[in-house]
């Protein structure tokens, strides 16, 4: 079994299709919705944690792509300019998911994308503006 977080983007015309139902029913994938933005007639976004066998996940993702739903690993959607980071800690103050934490030994910032729920609070919290999250476009 594998567990991984993905960002899904739906084309405007796909709002009436039960994709998550098919992921569960046809591919035996456990889904956990971490964040959703659905606007009738517009592109929608969904952050999902998918859990299943390697084959099932592969097939489920292929099914989404066949239906024009893009599906990319969450960590590819977040960029943190680590080189410029001064490890001040401001982002850890707002990251209640625990994805951004100070290393208790060297006090440098650690980012664990697997814990990120794309709340985006870190983006304005960083005084050096080092986070970019590509959730919508």
């Amino acid at each position, binding site marked *: 079994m594998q567990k991984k977080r993905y960002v899904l983007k739906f084309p405007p015309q796909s709002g009436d299709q039960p994709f998550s139902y098919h992921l569960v029913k046809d591919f035996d994938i456990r889904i956990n919705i971490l964040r959703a933005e659905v606007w009738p007639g517009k592109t929608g976004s969904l952050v999902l944690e998918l859990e299943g066998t390697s084959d099932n996940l592969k097939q489920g993702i292929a099914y989404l792509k066949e239906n024009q739903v893009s599906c990319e690993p969450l960590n590819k959607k977040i960029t943190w300019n680590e080189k410029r980071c*001064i490890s*001040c800690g401001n982002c850890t103050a707002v990251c209640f998911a625990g994805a951004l934490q100070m290393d208790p030994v060297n006090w440098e910032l650690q980012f664990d994308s697997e814990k990120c729920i794309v709340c985006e609070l870190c983006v304005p919290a960083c005084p050096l503006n080092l986070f970019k999250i590509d959730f919508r476009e």
Partner: protein
Amino acid sequence: MSIQKTYEEINEKIRRGEAVVLTAEEVSQMALTASPEEIAEKVDVVTTATFGAMCSSGAIVNFGHANPPIRMEKIRLNGVPAYEGLAAVDTYIGATACDPENPKYGGAHVIQDLIEGKDIELEAWGKGTDCYPRKHIKTIINKETVNEMILFNPRNAYQNYNVAVNSTAQMKYTYMGNLLPHMRNATYSTSGELSPLLNDPEMKTIGIGTRIFLGGTQGFVVWPGTQFNTSKPKNEHGVPVSNSATLAVIGNLKEMSSEFLQAAYYEKYGVSLFVGIGIPIPVLNADIAKCVSIRNEQIETTVCDYGVPGTPALGRVNYAQLRSGEIEVQGKKIRTAPVSSLSKARKIADLLKKLIQSGEFEITKPIQMFPTNTSLKSLKEQPPLTPPKEGN
């Protein structure tokens, strides 16, 4: 017999490459098994450091005279307003200055761009005088074209600072970071047992003329900082339990590095400047050895509610608790986060240690010590002055 060393004796050892230098964190560890007398005997200098956002910072710049010359009476650097009331071509660019149209780029960013050698657009206006006939200039300046650029920060290196929480139902955007509603986070700022003025709480070795590490080069303490306050309550270890003393510091900005001076923008607050400061403390005697041995659990600070006007105090915690990731305030467990960089502060303390060990940085006896009985005044609202009545 109790140890008593002089500044000159320690400098002699530094010149010979024999001085024993430890960081404040190292000496705190040593103190777990060594007495202040033993520390005073073995250790000559302790390095302290901090790297935090310090809003009361800025730079003096002299542009040189153009031909024909201009008496600059309004000045913009990359669109950021700089002070125009200093002769013809001197200015002071404050770290927090900004053009309200472009609030995310301010004086601190101009200072960082200057350090990094980037070109800056200078635009200035004057009324035109007999000796300064020009009325307008728009040109490019950088580190190489200007005569002097001097970092002069009126209030840096606060001795301790409050912990910030927010009890309201809305997010609060502050210089202590973004505070989640219902006290769901708490932010703290100083480097604790590594922080300069917490290692010399009575400022027995830090005063006017103290040579320090500032922004990547050598600088000096030139005055007590603004809002210098010695009347805050102290705990049993002699440490004030909220923000108290401060330092005014100066140094050559041309020699500084953006590794130790970083512009910052806080959402819905404004621009500030992260300043790296390192201060060596000479271990002249056992008294000073005891001060520099202070540990995080002995340094306490006050938790203040930034959601309520007047930021009322809610409790007291120590830095060991703050660094553990969780504090308890009024029976509620709150997640903590730093807003100043301990990893950078450690880097500065280590760098300063190496500079002293290699004989490149000597300690200085202050020319004058700081006042010991200051307190703070607040700004009172008074009725406006009535203009004098015109005579008959």
